[in-house]
């Protein structure tokens, strides 16, 4: 019998490894800061590589003097390293400059649209998790209808482009059946179709991950032992089994949430959802450098924070991650 099936006999490793954990945390934080710096530099360089925004901002017949005046007004007449240095200096103080298009400070602009994206991503994430997780578990433990449903859903979720799915959902549920509103401005009913569209890919990936993890775990010795101890089957599956597949799922969920933020771009355009994704697409099209840098940086910050959170959460679920232990085995419920 594996010793891991009786974890209650082992002393809790948590207290003993707390210095290690904080060191690990410090490493993660400094890693995150490096990522953010990289994001800012890359966004700056790529944005400026696309060309001169003045051409797009001005009418075609604007005289040269007007162009020069506007370039000066926007600070585009300075050398690139100076522009980047100023951007970084101001960004550290929370000032991302002024949008070329809107003429407004970037930070409030982005923060105004962020809640809409977070609302959409959170709703999609909940759907993905609340449906994907049980579906994965059920299909691994029961097979049959749940398994078939999972196969179908995951195939649809993985294969269908979000923009097409979104338009089809609107056509069926809003235009034909009149069950849901067509437009996306208003209460919860307006959130259903965009959130559903956005969630499907994540739902498919999460349920497949849970399914394969559970299939592997349910064959393990400690599950057999749990059954031998006379525990009810639901407890064996949902407590002993599920907890042991949660670590990869939480890691994946963290990445999914980040993915949802970026996939939201497409869904926001299709559903005219006033979020950060649409703002960044617009900024890109118009070469609105400050707005583009602001949206990408704030989205990057969100992504990094979510991953940091996922790491911390994993350490709580599986203390061995925090302690640096590498032995394989299961986690106690």
């Amino acid at each position, binding site marked *: 019998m594996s010793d891991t099936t009786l974890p209650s006999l082992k002393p809790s490793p948590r207290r003993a490894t707390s210095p290690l954990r904080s060191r690990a945390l410090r490493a993660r934080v400094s890693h995150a800061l490096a990522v953010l710096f990289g994001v800012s530099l890359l966004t700056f360089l790529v944005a400026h590589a696309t060309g001169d925004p003045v051409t797009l901002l001005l009418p075609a017949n604007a005289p040269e003097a*007007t162009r020069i005046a*506007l370039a000066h007004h926007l600070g585009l007449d300075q050398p690139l390293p100076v522009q980047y240095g100023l951007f970084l200096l101001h960004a550290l103080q929370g000032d991302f400059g002024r949008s070329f298009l809107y003429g*407004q400070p970037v930070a409030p602009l982005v923060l105004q649209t962020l809640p809409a994206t977070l609302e959409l991503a959170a709703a999609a994430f909940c759907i993905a998790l609340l449906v994907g997780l049980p579906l994965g578990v059920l299909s691994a433990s029961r097979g049959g209808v749940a398994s078939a449903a999972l196969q179908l859903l995951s195939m649809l979720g993985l294969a269908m482009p979000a923009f097409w799915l979104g338009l089809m959902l*609107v056509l069926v549920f809003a235009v034909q059946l009149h069950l849901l509103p067509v437009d996306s*401005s208003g209460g919860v009913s307006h959130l259903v179709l965009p959130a559903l569209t956005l969630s499907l890919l994540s739902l498919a990936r999460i349920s497949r991950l849970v399914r394969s993890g559970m299939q592997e775990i349910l064959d393990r010795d400690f599950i057999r032992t749990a059954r031998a101890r006379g525990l009810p089957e639901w407890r064996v599956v949902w407590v002993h089994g599920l907890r042991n597949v949660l670590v990869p799922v939480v890691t994946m969920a963290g990445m999914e949430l980040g993915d949802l933020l970026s996939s939201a771009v497409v869904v926001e355009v299709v559903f005219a959802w006033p979020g950060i994704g649409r703002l960044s697409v617009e900024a890109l099209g118009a070469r609105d450098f400050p707005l583009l840098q602001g949206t990408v940086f704030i989205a990057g910050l969100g992504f990094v924070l979510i991953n940091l959170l996922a790491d911390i959460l994993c350490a709580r679920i599986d203390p061995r991650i925090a302690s640096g232990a590498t032995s394989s085995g299961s986690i106690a419920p």
Partner: protein
Amino acid sequence: MPPALPVRSGPITRRSFNATLAAAALLPRPTAAASIAPVVITSDEDVTTLDPHLIRNNHPIGSLIWSLFDSLVRRRPDGTHEPRLATGWSQVSPTVWHFTLRPGVTFHDGERLDAAGVVFNFNRMNQAPWNGECQLWQQSGLVACAALDPLTVALTTAAPSSTLLYWLEEAFIGPTAYLRDTAPELVGSHPIGSGPYLFVSWQRGSQVTLRANPAYWGGAPPIRDVVFRAVPELSARLDELKGGSIDLLTGLDPDSAALAVSPVSGVRQVRGLRKMHVGIAQHGIAPLRDRLVRQALNHAVDVQLMVDTLQRGTTTRLLSVINPPNNDPALQPFAYDPQQARALLHQSGHAGFAVELAFDGRYADAQETCEAVGSFLEAVGLHPVLKAYESGHFAETLRARGFPGLYFYGFAAQIEPLVELVVFTGSAIDNASGYDNPAVDAVMRQAADVTDADARAALVRQAEGMIWNDAPWIYLWYLPALYGSSHRLEYTPRPDDYVEIYRARLAA
């Protein structure tokens, strides 16, 4: 009459601004219309600013500014000039114009319109960043403006200007105190004008809400509540139109027009003004500098067939480089005649050359159009090479006159011969083809200097004919102006994309 709003003195703060809005909200409203859902107008682009001097596009920003503000003169759909804030004007000398202002006009915040305010607005338009969008000074040759008395403004141009009224039509007037004392971003997000509609709210990235101005000098517009909403995807806009949640859909193309027809909606069409063409660059490969070659290209392409197929008959081929009704009816379109094209190419000594055909994604059918044009050119022995550009890159190349061969483009929607022809003068900044005929330039200069309307029209017609036969473009068609509309909305769309919702009404 509703009570007048208090006139403020001193700087406008966010608080006093909100107080004004609150006061505006207390104005009596017509109650009969209370149960009618707002009229919703869509656009594919977002509204980025509502600063009256930063109109970046005709729709939605232009449509909103036209509803919230007034200019001295308004451009009618047929290009004629309608008195608005000015009741009349006269050209007292070749370079000096006097405009008489409408008395008793108040802005939405209670400020009174006067000549000094108009002068303040014009001067604001002449500074960065506003002078980038508002081209009154640069394009009309305006050099000075002055208030002669509270209701008379004098405008002086460097040379006699025949396009002053045209550019004044895009010069909108806001209240001086508000524009002067308020942070520009607040001016851009909380517009105060004197137009037929009052600004209610702007949910950024989503919608702008307007309400009829009961105190408008021309009377309150028939529709009380109006919403301008951005829906980037055409398919999503069509779904909404059929679902009954929008009333006017812009940006419809011939391929999708049939999809706008439903029990609650239909298609409205007017003759478009944007002149679609394949520009023939004269700063690139040598053969294109030969007039015979350019005429041959025009004979090689079966434009009518493309209008009937690609454009599904929703438009007509170009009649001239000047838009109707000012065009010369005697001009003949180049007949589709591959034999003639081959003969002209042979005669020029430039047969069988390779030529780039550039396009970007701005117009829905750019690639299909270029493929069709390319195959017609191939049929007369040329070797066209299609090249797709990113829109920003395309605009830059156009401005820099960097296209080596042919490029698919649409030239601005205008009804003002002298403004339309500027693009064909050698020194014009937006002369993308690089067409340069000194004889045309001379006639154009003469036309600009002449004050007699008939003499000017004769000169314009002369320049028009010279340009047409020089063939700086392969002439294609007018960009179809198609709109999806709910059956409850009674509105005749304009050909230039502006939506004048104050001219619309709801079906009984």
